């Protein structure tokens, strides 16, 4: 069964309809890349799935659990809704680290606040905090940042900041990790380190959705590609097929433009 199902998402801003009925699904452990020119709606789609925008119409199911349904307005409390939302994590284009916290605290802040809601928090406080820190350190180690734990974001390069933000998103153990153009704010020589991290996550079968302009990378790392154009999915399929044998005129034009 698909771990993510997105059905018929519509979203308008004022009179302009940005998403005109988007549906796709994603298998557990797979990597999906969303490509398309600027203004095609790919970032809006990602923001709708992450609740940074509310879709006008549509349904989103994660792991069999409906996290959004425009037909059945939810009666969930704010906290229950947050719990559902945490099934998905998001890495931003601009990192959005919290500047006043060091690297370790950036990663542990959300898990620590969440742990406070646990019934046994008061009794086992030390142990719980300890576990959160151990896990954060493991994640940061994996990101090659174990020597930067007490650094502040302003002391890090863009690539390092983005790796911290990946660790921060992973610390909440999302079932699916979304990336919003994770290398677009980076100098070209720094994009490699982020792509390497994503590649490694793919090897470990982390389910990921990546909005990206890095076509070579998308082709290499993705199982599935969705090509968006003017608010619809113009074409989708296996990465290999899509890049080597595009069917639609729009995708052909898009790929040709990139070559020039």
């Amino acid at each position, binding site marked *: 069964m698909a771990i993510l199902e997105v059905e018929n998402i519509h979203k308008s801003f004022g009179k302009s309809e940005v998403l005109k009925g988007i549906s796709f699904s994603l298998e557990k452990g797979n990597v999906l890349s969303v490509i398309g020119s600027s203004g095609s709606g790919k970032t809006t789609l990602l923001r709708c799935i*992450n*609740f*940074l925008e509310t879709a006008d119409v549509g349904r989103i199911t994660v792991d069999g659990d409906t996290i959004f349904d425009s037909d059945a307005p939810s009666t969930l409390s*704010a*906290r229950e809704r*947050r*719990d559902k*939302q*945490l099934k998905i*994590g*998001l890495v*931003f284009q*601009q990192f*959005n*680290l*919290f*500047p*006043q916290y060091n690297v370790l605290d950036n990663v542990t*802040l*959300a898990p620590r*606040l*969440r742990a406070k809601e646990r019934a046994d928090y008061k009794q086992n406080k030390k142990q719980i905090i300890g576990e959160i820190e151990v896990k954060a350190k493991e994640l940061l180690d994996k990101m090659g940042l174990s020597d930067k734990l007490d650094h*502040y*974001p*302003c002391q890090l390069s863009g690539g390092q900041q983005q790796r911290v*933000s990946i660790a*921060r*998103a992973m610390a*909440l153990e999302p079932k699916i990790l979304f990336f919003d153009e994770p290398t677009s704010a980076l100098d070209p020589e720094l994009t490699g380190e982020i792509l390497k991290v994503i590649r490694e996550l793919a090897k470990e079968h982390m389910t990921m959705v990546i909005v990206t302009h890095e076509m070579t990378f998308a082709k290499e790392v993705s199982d599935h590609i969705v090509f968006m154009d003017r608010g619809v999915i113009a074409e989708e399929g296996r990465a290999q097929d899509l890049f080597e044998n595009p069917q639609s005129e729009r995708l052909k034009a898009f790929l040709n433009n990139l070559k020039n």
Partner: protein
Amino acid sequence: MTQFFQQFPVVFQSLNVGFLQTLKLFGATLLGALPLGLLISFGSMSKFKPLSIVTRLIVWVVRGTPLMIQLLIIFFFPGLVWGKPIWGGGESGRFLAATVAFILNYACYFSEIYRGGIQSIPVGQHEAAQVLGLSKSQTFFRVVLLQVVKRIVPPMSNEIITLVKDTSLARIIALQEIIWAGQSFMKGSHGIAGQIWPLFFTGVYYLLFSGLLTILFNRLEKKLDYFKV
């Protein structure tokens, strides 16, 4: 010259008493206006239109009229117009009225500084907090607040140093602060009359106190230097 040395201890004593009242007004104003200003800034940023419109109207009126008029209105209005003097007589009544006027006035100025600070925090900070599952209040207290504090230290220090000197306006309702104390030696007090130097000398108190505040604010700024917003 010998006359000056005879007068100085008497004047010094009297100015100290006046300055204590100045400091009390200063402290009480900060204590009230710092939190009230935050509430007002929330009001003016509210998505509930009537609330934000009314709040902004109040801020406009308070910032758009002289503090001196506000002092006079707040002090005299209840007694003269309603026939119900609510402040009580004597120095304590004048102090209470002055404090209310100062808190109201300064809270409005502070609210605009807070608003500017809060709105200058990039939307990405709120979004990051949201996708990490932080609640609205966790986002404000754990993520936004310290960044706001860092941003508003320079304009706040400006405003607070202005407050030090603005307290002298309370002289208009005869609050016995330091200007009042200095002036009393012109008319005659403690056997000294026709002397203007005590009034001029009050400037030294303001200068030293605002100097002290400047040092404190610089320290605070340095303390928050460890991160960038």
